[in-house]
């Protein structure tokens, strides 16, 4: 595994991220954004800075969708500082064991 990261700024998807159907659309958009990159083991970083609210439905569908699309990539998250509700949502999704990801500072 190398240290090359692809960073996705979630604020570009919206300040309030809601619903499974929107998450599925967002996963397809991510596919386009990183289209052309080889599916190596490089990290995929989800940057939540300036995102205010993420519902568990969106988080579950989005992160699981990325995991299924890029099984070789390690999914990490950042930008949740100062947003305890967002932290809680990501923990709930992790505890649901529907994703397998790390949280980074």
């Amino acid at each position, binding site marked *: 595994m190398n240290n090359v990261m692809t960073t996705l700024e979630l604020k570009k998807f919206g300040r*309030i991220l809601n*619903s*499974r159907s929107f998450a599925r659309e967002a996963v397809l958009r991510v596919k386009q954004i990183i289209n052309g990159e080889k599916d190596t083991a490089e990290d995929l970083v989800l940057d939540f800075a300036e995102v*205010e609210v993420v519902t568990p439905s969106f988080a579950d569908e989005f992160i699981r969708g990325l995991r299924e699309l890029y099984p070789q990539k390690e999914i990490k998250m950042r930008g949740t500082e100062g947003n*305890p*509700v967002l932290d809680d949502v990501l923990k709930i999704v992790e505890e649901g064991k529907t994703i397998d990801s790390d949280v980074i500072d």
Partner: protein
Amino acid sequence: MDPHIESLYDHLDEWIPAGMVDFSHFDFMHPWDIGLISLLAIKHQATVGDGNIVLPRNANLRSYLKRMHFHTFLRELGCAHSAALFDSILISEHENMGLQEILHCRYLDDFSARLAHFERMFKNFGLGEEDAHRALIIVGEFGNNVFDHNLGNWPTNFSGSLIAAQNYPRLKRIEMIVADAGVGFLGSLQNAFPDLQTDIAAIKKGLEGNTGRIGEKRGNGLKTIQQWTIGNFHGVITIHSGSGLVQVDEHGIEEKEVAPIVGTLAQFVIYYE
């Protein structure tokens, strides 16, 4: 069980006689009451007909219902005669800023687009940033469920979610409802859990974090909002689906068999500092 809600159902036969929805004797209404009457009106739409919805005699309550835009819902239901009874009531939309008028979101995109508005509403009601976000997620998950479990399968011509809220600033209490005339908990969960027999059992199954969507890894939404409502807000979740009524708070879970509705009426009550 909340005494107001219990009393409401104990006397249900009196105010929904055959072919009518009669709430003429009401003097005060909570969002729950408005949601229940709305779903009963949808259920009895074919038989009730315009003119058989008997509105409250209490003038203040009629003004409140107008402020809640109940007349708009009645018109949508085809009850123009009943709706016209509100025409002579003049109110200012700036009266009683502590409420959310009845909103009918026909589509998920419609609902999602309202979330920023709900966030402002919670903050205007007095919630801090963190609590407003948490409350927004609670209403977001309730609303998502309406569309996730009914898309393409609405049992009547009335699709989408009805949303209303009331803030009680002296009590520091917010009541918010999300209602839909959909397939209900039993209709949704029975696909995945064919042994489920009753609406109460289905609601409890849903509250445990189970989903009716076969072959999909999902669920936990209701479990989360239940935990947050009780754990973070010392609040109450009440769900009426089909003929089942279930209420959960920090003291436990209570259930009751009640008169059936089409779909689901869900409410969360939260307390804030």
